[in-house]
Structures are given as C-alpha cells and as structure tokens.
C-alpha cells in the first residue's frame, strides 16, 4: 500500500491551500479530487471577492483559483484528478476509486476538504427537468458556456441565490423573480441591489407551490406565506419559466469523517453534520483535520485560510516544523480569519435581527425586503454626500468585512480605517479626479461617480457595467432607478474599459439633474430585452 506524509481529499480552495502550506514545509503531499479539473467551486465564481488585500479581495474567484493552482504546482503539490475517495478509516487509510480500479492509500495525516453539497427543497413538480440547483446553473454557464434556461425563477435570497441571479443576467438569461420564504433577504444587500436595479423583482415571504409542465418545466406558481410559513390563500402568482433554480443552502459533505470515527455534531449554524474540531482544524482522531465548508459552511476566502492553518499544523504534527514556528504562522492566519468573521453577516450573527449598523445608523428596511435602498434612506449613510463637481456616492450600507475601495482611491476620498467592517466614509474635502478606480474595485458594485451639475440641465452618473453588448458612446437609452424602474431617458457620455478595471466597465450616462441620485442603471431598449 502506497504511503504519504499527508493526503488531502478535495482540491478546492481549502484543500489546495492546505496542500501548498504543507508542501512548503517539505511534506510529500497528494491531493485526491473526483473532478476532471482542480479548483472546486472557485472556477465558477466570476464575481470579485470581498475582504482586504490579505484575503485577495477585488480579485475574481476564478482568477484566485488560477493563482492557487500556480502556487501549488510551484511547490510540487501532486494533484490526482478523476480520483474519487469513497471511504476513509480511522487508521488513516483511504479508498480511492479511479477509472478502472479501487486503490488503498495510507498517510500519517489526512486533511478532509470535501466541501459541501446543495440542499434541496420539495414542492409539487420539483423532480421535473428544468428544476435544478443554483450550483448546476453556475456550472453550465460559467464552466461550459451554456445558458441554463431562457426564463429563470430563483428560489433563495442568500448570497448564492443573489450572486447566481446576477450571473444568469450576465449570461443573457432573464431572471423573472427571486423568491424566498424568509421575510428578509439573507445575503449581502449590495448583491441584492445589483439585480434589483436590473429589474429583477423580489418576493420575500413567498414560496414555490408548484412547478408546472408535463415533461419539463413550463411555468411556476408561487404564493405568499404567513409568519408560520403557511401559504395564504388567494396570493398565488404564476410565471412562465423554463428553469427554476434552488439556492436553499449548503450541507457539509462530512460522510468520510463520520465513517472514520471522528466525533460529529449536528450544528444548524454550520449547515448540518460537522466534525468537532479544535482551533487547528484537527478532529477527535489525531492527525485527521477538516477544513473549509465540510467543517462548517462559510465562503471560499475563509476556507483558504482554514486550509493554510491545517496545512501548517499537519507539518508540525509530523515534525516538519517546530511548535514556535507553527504558532507564529497560525496566529497570523487566525487574525486574517477573524477579520473575515466580523460584521453583520458573521457566523456569530447568523439568525440575529440587526437593526443598527456599527455606526448606529438604522439598517435599510427596503433593502432587506425589496433588494434596494429607498431614496430617503440612502442619504443617511456616510458614503453618500453631495458637493459641486464629480464625487463618489458609495451605497454601502451594511457592515461587511471589505475595504478595496479605500485602497483604490489614491486621493484619500474614501476612508474605512482599521476596522474592515466599517462603512466607507467619503471625505468631502478631498478632490475626486474621476479616475473610477473605486467603482471598479467595489466587489459589491455599490459605488457611483456622480456629477450633480454636469451642465445647466443635466447630471452624469458613472456606474459599473458588466454586461454585453457594451453600450456605445452617444447612444441613447433609458436610466433605471435602484428598483429597476425606468425613470428617464439617458445618453451614454462615456464607456471606459481598461485592464485594471478587470472587466468591470465604467459607463457614464447623462440624465436630467433631478435624476442624479435616482439613476443607477442603464438599458438600451433596442439591443437588450
């Protein structure tokens, strides 16, 4: 039986990070993954990540994936693909199934980084072709260039539901509604706002009653629910759709750990059955670690840090580095991880009803219910100011750990400070040059450059634009407000696409002066549906 110092199961963000860290310390590492390609779900993540520089913020997920792969190959990590681990035993033996055989391997240490699986929800017709996981839709469009459907209804307002809805729009699909049984939106407000201003309606406190169709989905009926999640009669609404996407959470794929005899717990906050691990990610079985979503559902940024932590701990466990060295590295990683676990959406705040921001500003009710901030609410946030000439308007209203906007502005217009979760403050004394770096850097696409007095009658609004076809200079279309309603005619004054903007185009539109604080999206009615 072949032996390794360290076997890692899963070549996603956490598994690869663990492998890199361990290989750097000299361990012989092998990573098994059941897929044809490494990277886990990272290559389906086409949005810019949140966080700070240390967390690779404002870099798109698939680019982070490419960086990880480069780093892994540079330090000699051996990734075996099409290799499904179908069993693990407490003596640190695993069973791997490849194309034509079943092979056993042993290691002195094992790191399980198997990730998570999508949850399902049942309703009449849920087994019809056309009903699919949001992850399935993401796989089709972002990995294989195939549209999941023409008209899609999304169930679930967590970050997955919101992000995938935006990606469906980017792929050229129509998202007819975003539905969630919960009374408020679960994911980041900025993600919701991105799709709300494109005109996607939100139906909170609604659930799917029925998927219609004989052989495949042709329509869907939703209905409103009361506070006990019972459907209210007479509230049924019908949509013609060919696709229904389910984004109703993830569950850790922890079966291997359970099989190996690791102590498990059922932890609803972590998404289900998870191993009980110590601060280093080590399970109750010495030398077996669990990192990433399998030890509790979070996100790729924290999974990568957890992976590195377990990697260095495995190195220390096997004597490849001394305790002091390990603790030093671990403390640094712990700090990075803790800074990501702050703010309104932190694991510790899950399920809590937060009504005020850290700054004491009331959280936008409209944002939580409809997906966009109302015009009067937006004025209460420190990123929204008014002055003569060009200035940034930052519609960032929830405390999330993210600060690329501060780094992007070389003219000190934007201040967040030491605390990553603080809302960005616009410094009215600094002069905005209109470079647009902040607009492109904002992972939540929540920054606009506004010139409230462009000329006698008009204002200009510069907004992030990630759709095709790109509008052309001088073309005329319509401006949409935050809710996706057409509010006025708009003329394209400028469209900027440079390499540093990383595919976020900066579209400047001219609108009547009184629309400066309303117009937040643009549509050309001739080229777009």
């Amino acid at each position, binding site marked *: 039986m072949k032996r390794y110092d360290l076997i890692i199961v899963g070549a996603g963000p956490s598994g690869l990070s663990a492998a890199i860290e361990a290989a750097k310390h000299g361990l012989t590492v092998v990573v098994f993954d059941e897929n044809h390609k490494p990277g886990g779900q990272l290559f389906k993540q086409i949005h810019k990540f949140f966080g700070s520089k240390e967390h690779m913020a404002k870099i798109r997920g698939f680019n982070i994936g490419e960086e990880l792969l480069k780093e892994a190959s540079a330090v000699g990590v051996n990734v075996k693909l099409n290799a499904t681990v179908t069993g693990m035993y407490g003596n640190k033996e695993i069973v791997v199934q490849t194309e034509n055989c079943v092979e056993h391997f042993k290691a002195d240490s094992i790191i399980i980084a198997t990730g998570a699986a999508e949850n399902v929800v049942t309703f009449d017709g849920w087994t019809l*072709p056309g009903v*699919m*996981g949001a992850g399935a839709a993401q796989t089709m469009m972002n990995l*294989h*260039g195939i*549209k*999941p459907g023409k008209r899609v209804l999304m169930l679930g307002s967590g970050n997955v539901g919101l992000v995938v809805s935006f990606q469906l729009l980017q792929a050229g699909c129509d998202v007819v509604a975003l539905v969630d049984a919960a009374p408020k939106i679960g994911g980041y407000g900025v993600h919701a706002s991105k799709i709300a201003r494109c005109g996607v309606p939100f139906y909170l406190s609604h659930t799917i009653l029925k998927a219609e169709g004989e*052989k495949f989905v042709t329509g869907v009926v939703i209905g409103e629910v009361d506070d006990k999640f019972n459907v209210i009669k007479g509230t049924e609404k019908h949509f013609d759709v060919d696709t229904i996407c389910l984004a109703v959470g993830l569950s850790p794929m922890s079966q291997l750990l359970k099989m190996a005899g690791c102590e498990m717990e059922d932890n609803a906050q972590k998404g289900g059955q998870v191993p009980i691990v110590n601060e280093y990610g080590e399970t109750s079985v010495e030398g077996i670690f669990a990192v990433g979503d399998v030890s509790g559902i979070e996100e790729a940024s924290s999974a990568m840090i957890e992976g590195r932590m377990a990697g260095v701990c495995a190195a220390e466990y096997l004597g490849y580095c001394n305790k002091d060295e390990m603790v030093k590295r671990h403390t640094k990683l712990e700090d990075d991880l803790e800074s990501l676990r702050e703010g309104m959406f932190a694991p510790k705040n899950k399920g809590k009803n937060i009504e005020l921001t850290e700054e004491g500003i009331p959280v936008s009710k409209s944002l939580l219910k409809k997906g966009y901030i109302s015009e009067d609410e937006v004025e209460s946030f420190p990123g929204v100011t008014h002055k003569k000439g060009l200035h940034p308007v930052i519609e960032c209203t929830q405390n999330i750990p993210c600060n690329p906007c501060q780094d992007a502005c070389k003219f000190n217009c934007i201040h967040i400070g030491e605390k990553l979760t603080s809302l960005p403050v616009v410094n009215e004394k600094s002069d905005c040059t209109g470079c647009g770096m902040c607009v492109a850097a904002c992972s939540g696409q929540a920054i606009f450059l506004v010139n409230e007095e462009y000329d006698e009658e008009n204002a200009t609004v510069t907004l992030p634009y990630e759709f095709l076809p790109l509008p052309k200079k001088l073309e005329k279309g319509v401006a949409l407000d935050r809710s996706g309603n057409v509010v006025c005619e708009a003329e394209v004054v400028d469209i900027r696409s440079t390499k540093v903007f990383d595919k976020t185009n900066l579209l400047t539109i001219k609108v009547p002066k009184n629309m400066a604080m309303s117009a937040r999206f643009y549509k050309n009615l001739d080229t777009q549906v």
Partner: protein
Amino acid sequence: MSENRIAEHPILGIPEKGKKIKFTFDGKEVEGYEGEPVAEALKAAGLMVHRYTKKHHEPRGVFCAIGRCTDCVMVVDGLPNTRTCITPLQEGMTVQTQYGVSTKPE
C-alpha cells in the same frame, strides 16, 4: 451556433471549446464539442429529458450538474446509469434516453 450557448460572456469572454464533433442522441445526429460534458452538449441542443424513472416513469433531467445527484444518467455507448454531467463527450458517442435502467420504454 445553438441559442443556448453563450457566444461571448462579459467576464469570461468567448467560451473555450474543444473540436466540434458529432454524436448521436436516440439515433439522431447531434453536434457538440469534444471534452465538454455530454449533458452540456445535450442542453445546447435543447434536450431536457434524460431519462424516465423505473417506478413512476417520470421524466428527469440535469439537477446538480456535478455528478452527485445521479438524476441525469443515460445510456452512453451501451452503458446505462452513466452520469452525463461528468462524462466528457467524444466523437461518435451513442447517447440514449434511459427508461428505468435500459434503453427500452417500459
């Protein structure tokens, strides 16, 4: 090109694909790209129903797209229960709708 394929993506650009090849689905010739999952090529061709279940003869299609749920299985080159979402397409492949566990409607 099939209207279900994304010609150019605002972030990912023009999808990278293998060589254009032909395969058969229930005896009909269909085009796809070498190496892409069979299910994706079928989706591009507009196919929704991959199989009919054994007990209730209900239609099923792609559900998870990553080889977990096993709902998209079909008979590929004579082999039933093949997960089409993770099986790379090859020139000349024979893909058939699966009824229960065979190619014949029950």
